[in-house]
């Protein structure tokens, strides 16, 4: 009732400018915010990586201290996973999903804005730890008990815990939103089996998220109780088993890696058909294999724990379930190749990145299968061989696909094409540098180089390949600079793209670039897969998609901007810092969030109209 007794500020109405961005609930703008923020954070994670590579380039280097090195890899891993790849995925979910399913917005536009601001709050919180007495330093999976107060009295871990909680809220908000949006806001006729693959994988990813995040949330809450209130969840001295943390983390963690890769696979499944001018080969099977991967992702978590002493039976079971995931993944790979087979393949930059994805992901997947053999993983676990695997699937997989997505959808978002000639340079540089950076890690790993070491002696014989990897990393930085150059240049003066530069197949290409605020002047009716292609080729006479004429524009009511999502997020941020420094501040933060939630609840999506 608070909201009814305190004066509510008037609803924001700014059509442009900073206030518009702060209060926007337009999925396209939120998508852009998400994307730009995540990319900047990707750069910070990359800079952290460059520091590490500089330190490791030569034996016994002294560029950073061991303590800082530990903070670097922790922040690098956490940043890349939670602040770069996940939100970049969310950026595309936001921008593209409503367009692909023929909707005017997402189901809960304000929840969407809230998701972004909360993500930003979490990012600020985590990154600020560098300046507030030291970043977290226990690795991205923060195994107990090294995260406990006795071994880690500083605030680094507290920042890690609280920012991950806040980020978790953001991810959950987005995931719930997309689950509902995709189930409920599809254009008439777009049955599940007519949904574009990217939409499908977004759906599956969102389901994974809403099921996986509660687990890490609880684990973090438990750790928080241990650290802040002297509870005993992971305290061995009280009889607790620190293995519980590992289980909880990886029950979340393995589905999480599929949360990182499934959107990428969705992106690839859009781009390859477009540039091969063929429909996706074996569509139902590709969909199914995505679902199966997600499902099986729940049965394999202990493959990260092969060496903790679970016993031969458990290790065998988890080895087998893990190997089994190669089957549905293989199906996807082969289906992409089947799509290209007898196609008319145009190697645009987006397509190059997609094929690069397939090639690199196979390498990463195969090293994954090598890990899955528990007995031989005893030699690999916690070595650079793992680091090689994870970068092949994460960089070679997720990042390559996201870069492909930028090249592919940039014209839709900005109305301009990215430069193809710079794009080619970008791709080849990335591709070569990526292999130069991460392939040698296979060697050093098998040569016995453990991960997370800040230094090594020259007698170990790891000098050469570390030097190569470091060179590769700086080359990779150069390739990212090329990419940034291309984006900025093309945004300013790229060739005008028109609405359908690639001869696209799905609905987003049927409307103007950039799309009008309401996306579709008239909601399309879908009668087939790849509806836009069908319409263009006239194979389905009645398909009526697209429009964008702007007629009847005045009858379209778009949800109106709102302050509240932003305010709730600010409250959360204040609350987060408060929990670390001062409980009173935390209470204030909580109160702000609570009041804003109330105000939000009683604020209509649209102001009642004056008829």
């Amino acid at each position, binding site marked *: 009732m608070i909201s009814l007794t305190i004066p509510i500020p008037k609803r924001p109405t700014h059509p442009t400018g900073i206030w518009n961005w702060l209060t926007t609930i337009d999925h396209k703008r939120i998508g852009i915010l998400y994307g730009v923020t995540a990319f900047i954070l990707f750069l910070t994670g990359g800079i952290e990586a460059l520091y590490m590579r500089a330190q490791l380039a030569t034996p016994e280097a002294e560029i950073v201290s061991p303590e800082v090195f530990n903070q670097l890899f922790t922040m690098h891993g956490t940043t890349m996973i939670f602040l770069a790849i996940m939100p970049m995925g969310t950026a595309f979910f936001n921008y593209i999903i409503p367009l692909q399913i023929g909707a005017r917005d997402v189901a809960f536009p304000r929840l969407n804005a809230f998701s972004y601001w909360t993500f930003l709050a979490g990012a600020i919180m985590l990154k600020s730890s560098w300046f507030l007495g030291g970043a977290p330093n226990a690795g991205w999976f923060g195994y107990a008990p090294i995260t406990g107060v006795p071994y880690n009295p500083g605030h680094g871990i507290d920042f890690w815990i609280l920012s991950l909680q806040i980020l978790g809220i953001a991810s959950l908000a987005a995931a719930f939103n997309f689950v509902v949006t995709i189930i409920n806001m599809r254009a008439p006729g777009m049955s599940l089996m007519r949904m574009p693959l990217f939409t499908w994988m977004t759906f599956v990813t969102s389901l994974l998220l809403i099921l996986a995040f509660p687990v890490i949330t609880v684990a973090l809450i438990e750790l928080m109780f241990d650290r802040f209130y002297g509870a005993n969840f992971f305290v061995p001295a009280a009889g607790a088993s620190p293995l519980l943390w590992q289980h909880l983390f990886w029950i979340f963690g393995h589905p999480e890696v599929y949360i990182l890769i499934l959107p990428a696979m969705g992106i690839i499944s859009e781009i390859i058909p477009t540039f091969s001018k063929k429909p996706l080969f074996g569509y139902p099977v590709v969909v199914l294999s995505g679902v199966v991967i997600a499902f099986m992702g729940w049965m394999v978590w202990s493959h990260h724990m092969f060496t903790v002493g679970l016993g031969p039976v458990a290790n065998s079971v988890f*080895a087998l379930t893990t190997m089994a995931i190669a089957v549905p993944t293989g199906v996807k790979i082969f289906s992409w190749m089947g799509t290209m087979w007898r196609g008319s393949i145009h190697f645009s930059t987006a397509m190059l990145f997609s094929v690069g994805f397939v090639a690199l992901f196979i390498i990463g997947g195969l090293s994954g299968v*090598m890990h899955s053999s528990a007995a031989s993983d005893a030699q690999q676990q916690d070595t650079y061989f793992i680091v090689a695997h994870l970068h092949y699937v994460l960089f070679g997989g997720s990042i390559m696909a996201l870069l492909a997505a930028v090249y592919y959808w940039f014209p839709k978002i900005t109305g301009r094409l990215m430069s193809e000639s710079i794009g080619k340079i970008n791709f080849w540089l990335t591709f070569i540098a990526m292999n130069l950076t991460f392939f040698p890690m296979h060697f050093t790993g098998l040569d016995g180089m453990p991960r997370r070491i800040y230094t090594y002696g020259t007698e170990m014989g790891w000098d050469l390949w570390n030097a190569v990897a470091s060179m590769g990393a700086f080359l990779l930085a150069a390739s990212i600079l090329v990419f940034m150059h291309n984006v900025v240049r093309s945004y300013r003066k790229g060739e005008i793209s028109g609405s359908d530069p690639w001869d696209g197949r799905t609905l987003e290409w049927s409307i103007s670039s950039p799309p009008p605020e309401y996306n579709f002047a008239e909601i399309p009716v879908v009668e087939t897969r790849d509806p836009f292609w069908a319409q263009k080729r006239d194979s389905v006479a009645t398909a009526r998609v697209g429009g964008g004429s702007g007629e009847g524009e005045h009858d379209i009511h778009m949800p109106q901007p709102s302050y509240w999502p932003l305010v709730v997020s600010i409250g959360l941020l204040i609350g987060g810092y408060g929990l670390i420094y001062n409980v009173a501040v935390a209470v204030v933060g909580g109160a702000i969030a609570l009041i804003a939630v109330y105000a939000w609840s009683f604020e209509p999506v649209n102001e009642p109209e004056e008829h």
Partner: protein
Amino acid sequence: MSLFRHHPTRLVRLVPLLLVFIVAGCYPDHPQSTFDSTGPVAQSQLNLFYWIFWAAVFVFVTVQSALLYICLKFRRKPGDPDPEQTHGHNKLEIIWTVLPVILLAIVAVPTVLTIFDNANSPDPDGMHVNVVAHQWWWEFNYPGEDVKTSNELHIPVDEVVNVSLETKDVIHSFWIPKIAGKVDMVPGNSNKMWIKGEEIGIFHGQCAEFCGESHANMRFQVIVESRADFDAWVASEREPAVIPVEPLAKAGLDLFEGDAQCWSCHKVEGSSRSRGTKGPNLTHLSGRQYLGAGIVENSQTNLRNWLTSPNDLKPGNIMYRDAAVYNDPDKALSDSDISALVAYLRSLK
């Protein structure tokens, strides 16, 4: 792409290059290389690795060449009509589901067999060593031999050694790449493994689980020796420490058991005073080849450096953090104190 446009065969030349790369990666002579196993556990793991590796190479070569072929073959040429809009091919899809299953079965069987093989010691009644990990050093206890030592593991060649693994603080992982893959030491959870060295020599061990600031510096040596040498070593280890006679060393002993308070953390057998357990057992320190858990050679200079500023050799180490001589300026060791301590420690043969 343009590089290969007219000469797809050029790519083929890359294959041997790639193989050279791969082979270049296995340096059997490197101290922690997993390609040069000298024990049955590591050997079985290596065999398994090769088995899977070649399966992976097979998949890699077939799939990547198919991909390359497709990329080269089906490129769009100007004026191409739309290709036929095929939607799938059931038979093909079944084939590429079943083939990987078969391939996986081929790697799964030896995997499971090896897991079980390595799980149980072939000689559970043989020798036992209890390893206790600490941030960032190792304690090795031989209950049967009644020997307690640190940072250097002696084992007799060709004998099964049953190892039990524990930790005093955080999680560590016990790993001797050439002898056996790693097993973690988890608080409150004693793990078991077995090892067997089949070659006389000194091998490197390494903590493999991130355990804090000096994780990188948590190493150890494994000395595989003949039974006779091993017995001799056991006999000498059992001896209490010699009481030094040389004056400087005697002064060192006094310091050690007196003002420097070394005794509060270190054990020296035979001394009634030095019974600490926070740091490594120093009874036969000078018999060890390395200092500070495998970090530097055990030389006079290095020992001196260690005592002068432990933090430089091993950042964050607990001795530097907690010993009064380092964190209380009033108690700091003078150069002559250090000389005395070094003399004493060097006498602990």
